[in-house]
């Protein structure tokens, strides 16, 4: 069970982008979070994945409240999450060959045993050829790099997956392929999923339930003051 309770989070003092939002994901459940750009949905996903400390509110993971985020979070909690971001180019170390990119979480947690086999197994699951594994990010396409990023997210066998606009940069076929990989993994492991996106058709097809940002309980409007209002201007 992943429970976000009354989360308030943001980047500027006194102007949080997420205000008092709650969301619960049952074990093994796939929840799609839908919302326009700039609404704060990615920030909420980062809070859920222990990547952003909220200003207030609680994150309860399997009954235990989380007290530390980012590098301060205990390893067994951090490794419970696999995260895939929107832009593979910004989330891949340009110096690493794809093989090392996928293996990095294993190395970082000292699990060198069977490393090569695990990488090979995942590479074939996400559709990367051995030739591609030897290349660095600038030598592959966005779609191929995102396949590697998904493999990296799965390499530690996380109990939770957070996919933040994972397919926004990708063509239809690669999108369908990556979603199929995620669903195969979830079918095999029973992992839960929070998929953030703006494509209702995609999330409806992919997830058990889709919630719209606007309908999340107990929230106030984001950032009325100071920041430019996102798209409140009448067209034409």
């Amino acid at each position, binding site marked *: 069970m992943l429970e976000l309770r009354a989360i308030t989070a943001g980047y500027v003092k006194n102007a949080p982008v997420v205000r008092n939002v709650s969301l619960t994901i049952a074990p093994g459940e796939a929840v799609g979070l839908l919302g326009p*750009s700039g609404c704060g949905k990615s920030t909420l996903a980062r809070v859920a994945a222990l990547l952003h400390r909220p200003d207030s509110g609680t994150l309860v993971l399997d009954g235990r409240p989380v007290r530390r985020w980012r590098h301060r979070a205990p390893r067994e909690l951090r490794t419970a999450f696999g995260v895939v971001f929107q832009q593979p180019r910004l989330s891949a170390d340009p110096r690493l060959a794809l093989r090392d990119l996928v293996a990095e979480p294993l190395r970082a947690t000292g699990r060198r045993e069977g490393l090569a086999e695990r990488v090979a197994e995942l590479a074939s699951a996400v*559709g990367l050829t051995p030739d591609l594994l030897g290349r660095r990010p600038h030598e592959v*396409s*966005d779609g191929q790099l995102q396949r590697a990023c998904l493999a990296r997210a799965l390499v530690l066998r996380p109990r939770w997956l957070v996919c933040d606009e994972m397919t926004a940069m*990708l*063509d239809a*076929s690669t*999108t369908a392929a990556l979603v199929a990989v995620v669903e195969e993994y979830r079918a095999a492991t029973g992992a839960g999923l929070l998929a953030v996106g703006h494509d209702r058709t995609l999330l409806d*097809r992919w997830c058990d339930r889709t919630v719209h940002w606007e309908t999340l309980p107990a929230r106030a409007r984001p950032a009325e003051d100071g920041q*430019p209002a996102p798209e409140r201007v009448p067209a034409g």
Partner: protein
Amino acid sequence: MTERAPVLSVRGLSVRFLMPGGRRVAAVTDAHFDVAPGECLALVGESGCGKSVLASALLGLLPGNAQTAGQALLGETDLLAADERTLARTVRGRLIGLVPQSPAAHLTPVRTIRSHLRETLTELTGVRGRAALRAAAGKAAERAAFPAGHLDHHPHELSGGLAQRAATALALVGDAPLLLADEPTTGLDRDLVDRTVDELRRHVDEGSEGAEGAEGAGASAGNAGAGRALLMITHDLAAAERIADRVAVMYAGRIVELTDAAAFFGAPGPRHPYSRGLLQALPDRAFTPIPGLPPELGDLPDGCAFAARCARATGACAVPPPLTGTVACHHPHQEPGPRAPAAQPLAPEAADRA
């Protein structure tokens, strides 16, 4: 389709990149297409298929190791043969307005939108003087539905949609007969995608209205009230379906299908197996991926580049299929109507038995 003279006429456009070690990457191979005034042609395909290289070739923005062949006629100018001076002084902004992929990266972060517009107006039009430029900037913003109240904002203060409109306003200043939109909707949410492409469509339909001071080379390309042409490069099939008149599907550097948008997205559907697979991968259709990966552009097979992933492939596919009619395939899906496809080597015995 194109009874009027096309705005852009591309004939046999190929782009090769020479890599270290004598490797050659075939980014675009033998592309043929026209874009008519008032028409939107959507060039679709997956990332890395050569779409954006084609756009860069039209703008003369390819890197130094690129070799081009063929012709791309815009009015009397061959964009591939033109020198940098011609491209800079008469083509970019004047004959081709570029709507960029990422407006946030396209705009200068330290300057306001008004300042961007003022500079562009000074460069591309005859408007001079503080007051006149100020008024012209307001007008230019209005054409792209950019709100006047945000003109003094810097790019980082704008939402994605407004930044997109600012970039579009800049692209429209030169009153170019061809708008080139390179992935204009990447990273935008669905409502914004719809709004952005609808606005692009509006600019195509409205065409050039002889905006302030469009003297100079811009007027020469036969756009007399006939509307602009739009070449939209995208991987977003929903956006293409929304506004395109015709669709060109690119795979591994080649245009494999070039057809009417209504027939492509509706009945009878695409004829090339790749196009079909791409449509079937959409979440509101079968949501099944095309098996396998696209080939490397540096290591293309001799025959049809899609054969390795294609369920209909046979021995005939060892020879690259020419673009016959609307499709480049040895085994295309059936053409509508009574005409049998010209190159259909499948099952002649069925006809014999009849």
